[in-house]
């Protein structure tokens, strides 16, 4: 089946992001397609470029990037939720006169329309929220 995930919990503060990743890894192990992960609400912090957890803890940002690299999963971040929380790619940083970007590929800033589209175009959309 073709799956999309909606992640609404920030990394480390809540279980939601950890659970979403474990579900994601189980999905692909079982041969399902995980085509899209959409980050909304505090979930957008999963895309922060500078996450630096202690070395003996899982690195959630790297785990999301690995899903993209190995399975082509799109990592979409709501632009409105991201901007107000300080998650800007280079283009948005320039547009808002900020020094330095806090989000980079493979994460992509996109609109809520992509969430609606993911919900309607995949077989399943599973929400992970705190």
């Amino acid at each position, binding site marked *: 089946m073709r799956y999309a995930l*909606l992640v609404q919990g920030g990394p480390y503060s809540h279980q939601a992001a950890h659970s979403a990743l474990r579900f994601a890894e189980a999905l692909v192990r079982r041969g399902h397609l995980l085509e899209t992960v959409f980050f*909304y*609400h505090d979930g957008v912090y999963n895309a922060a470029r500078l996450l630096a957890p202690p070395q003996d803890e899982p690195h959630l940002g790297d785990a999301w990037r690995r899903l993209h690299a190995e399975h082509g999963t799109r990592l979409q971040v709501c632009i*409105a*939720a991201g901007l107000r929380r300080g998650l800007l790619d280079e283009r948005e940083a320039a547009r808002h006169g900020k020094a330095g970007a806090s989000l980079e590929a493979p994460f992509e800033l996109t*609109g*809520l*329309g992509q*969430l*609606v589209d993911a*919900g*309607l175009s995949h077989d399943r*959309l599973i*929400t992970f*929220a705190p």
Partner: protein
Amino acid sequence: MSHESTLPEGDLLVVLRHGPHGSLWLREGLEAALVAAALGQRVSLLFMGPGVAALAANQQRGPLEQKGTLPMLEMLPLYEVESLLAVDEDLDALGLAPERLAVPAERIAPTAVAALMARHPLVLNF
């Protein structure tokens, strides 16, 4: 109270379980609803738990200077979002009689929530 057979159908049900102010859940849920409606989807809104407070009339800007969500509710007809439902017990718990609501919402029993969800292929929870 709504009989199950009169519950609306649609493409997307947005469930709003948080009140205005205090968190961004309500605002970001309504934003998702408005975007889906703007894209031509048939959207229903279900207010439940503390989320029914979103319907209260005479809301003002809070001391935290948030914009509040009432203006978004008032925009819903422009987006052709006409299915607003609220759980009757939750309205009653906050004393929100129909005349105290800023926008009208259909009262449904908690037992009708499952049937309402079943009438929408996509459900988003906020």
